[in-house]
């Protein structure tokens, strides 16, 4: 029986709800869950039917979900009150599970705005005041409230499948992949796909681009083992949060399209390995002081996949080869970077550019 997460136009909120429902179904059925992006809605289905009287209170997997580190980050704007909000999510989902699931089976289900719980800024930047209307120097804007069941689903999805990256002195980077067509048997497997290495990033775009490359590489490995690309993601949603005095405020945010890389992997899962390795080492070496231009050029290429950004990366890469101070600082990454630049990697990147142009 399919479930529908009809889209509201709030990209992060909608995607987080889809992930939240997927995790919920996985916990309830302990079997495979499929998510498909149908444009107007995310359509979810579980391989096993739901138990006639679904209850999650006894599920060990459900209890472990409350230990996710993401909860504190989702409710970062609430500071110390985050755990009470987490408990509120748990309570809503436990008590209203049957009515929520019945409602989501209706393709015409909608999210009510203006009632229920307010969307926290750590979940979706539209939750911040001052972004939806002109405030004219006064915060007259209301909280963005949504019905509590959908709010709880979104919080669950973001806490389990969202990636938060915080380094000292940097803004908080938030990343969430948008599924196109994907299935998983255990939600922890999905979390494994969304890990981000602890590098120094020069902003949220840089982190999002590296995250995208890592995600596609993990999917490529699976595709190479299985013979074809089974799981597809269409984009990575990203935004930054920074501390402004006592409050958190949103920095920039957008989405990074994954189609060019996904198409290349679908066409040739083995051949794209060199390209993804090269890009990965561009980010790794680029996190070194003195090689920032490499990370930024690689970011631009992954974001745009056009001739200008490709040419820039090649120019920078040629110059990096002679930067002794970079080599001395990160000998291993430097050698790996040099070894990763192969004729095959270069030709594959050219193919991706042509896909992106066409």
């Amino acid at each position, binding site marked *: 029986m399919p479930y529908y997460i009809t889209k509201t136009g709030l990209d992060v909120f909608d995607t987080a709800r889809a992930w939240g429902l997927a995790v919920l179904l996985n916990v309830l059925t302990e079997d495979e869950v499929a998510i498909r992006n149908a444009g107007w809605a995310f359509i979810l289905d579980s391989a096993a039917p739901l138990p006639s009287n679904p209850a999650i209170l006894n599920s060990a997997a459900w209890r472990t979900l409350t230990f996710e580190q993401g909860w504190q980050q989702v409710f970062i704007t609430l500071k110390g009150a985050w755990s009470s909000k987490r408990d509120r999510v748990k309570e809503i989902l436990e008590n209203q599970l049957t009515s929520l699931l019945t409602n989501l089976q209706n393709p015409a289900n909608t999210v009510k705005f203006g009632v229920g719980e307010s969307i926290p800024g750590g979940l979706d930047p539209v939750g911040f005041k001052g972004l939806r209307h002109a405030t004219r120097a006064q915060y007259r804007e209301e909280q963005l409230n949504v019905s509590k069941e959908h709010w709880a689903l979104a919080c669950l999805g973001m806490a389990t499948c969202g990636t938060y990256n915080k380094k000292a002195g940097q803004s908080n980077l938030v990343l969430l992949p948008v599924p196109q067509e994907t299935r998983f048997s255990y939600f922890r497997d999905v979390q494994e796909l969304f890990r981000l290495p602890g590098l120094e990033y020069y902003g949220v775009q840089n982190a999002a681009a590296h995250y995208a490359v890592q995600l596609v590489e993990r999917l490529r490995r699976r595709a190479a083992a299985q013979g074809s690309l089974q799981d597809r993601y269409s984009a990575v949603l990203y935004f930054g949060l920074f501390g402004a005095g006592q409050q958190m405020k949103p920095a920039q945010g957008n989405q990074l399209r994954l189609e060019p890389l996904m198409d290349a992997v679908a066409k040739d899962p083995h051949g794209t390995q060199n390209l993804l390795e090269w890009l990965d080492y561009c980010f790794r070496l680029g996190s070194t002081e003195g090689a920032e231009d490499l990370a930024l050029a690689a970011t631009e290429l992954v974001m745009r996949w056009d*001739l*200008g950004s*490709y*040419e820039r990366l*090649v*120019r920078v*890469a*040629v*110059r990096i*080869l*002679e930067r002794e101070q970079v080599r001395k600082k990160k000998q291993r990454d430097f*050698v790996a970077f*040099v*070894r990763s*630049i*192969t*004729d095959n990697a*270069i*030709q594959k990147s*050219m*193919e991706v*550019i*042509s896909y992106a142009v066409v």
Partner: protein
Amino acid sequence: MRLSEVYQNQAVKEFGEALGKAIGKEQDYASLTDLEFAQTKTDFADALHRFLRRFHTMASKKENMWFCPSDSRVEELIQLVDEIAKTISGDDNVRYREAIRLVRAALLSRALAQATYLKVQEIKQQQRAATQQSQS
């Protein structure tokens, strides 16, 4: 014309590899900058000629003679620019600027692959020398 097709062109291959050697072995970044700043067909042809002259000088000093692209390869590259420019819409300035960008991107890609190959050889040599030193 696609970048991957330009990359396979013989003139691009020979010139790109020569540029890679010049950068990898002689740190000839002047030629790289020269090519990067070329916006018109004349500028591009001049930059290629200047590089070829420099490369001849570098190659003549090498004991194991480097392969030098011939002057006719410059003409072939310019013909390639003309061919690509014909397929692009817009006025002459735009068409040639875009065509030069495409050929230059392919040249630099070849140069990067060659310079990297030389760097890998250099690293291997250094590692061998370090191993021998530690053994002795």
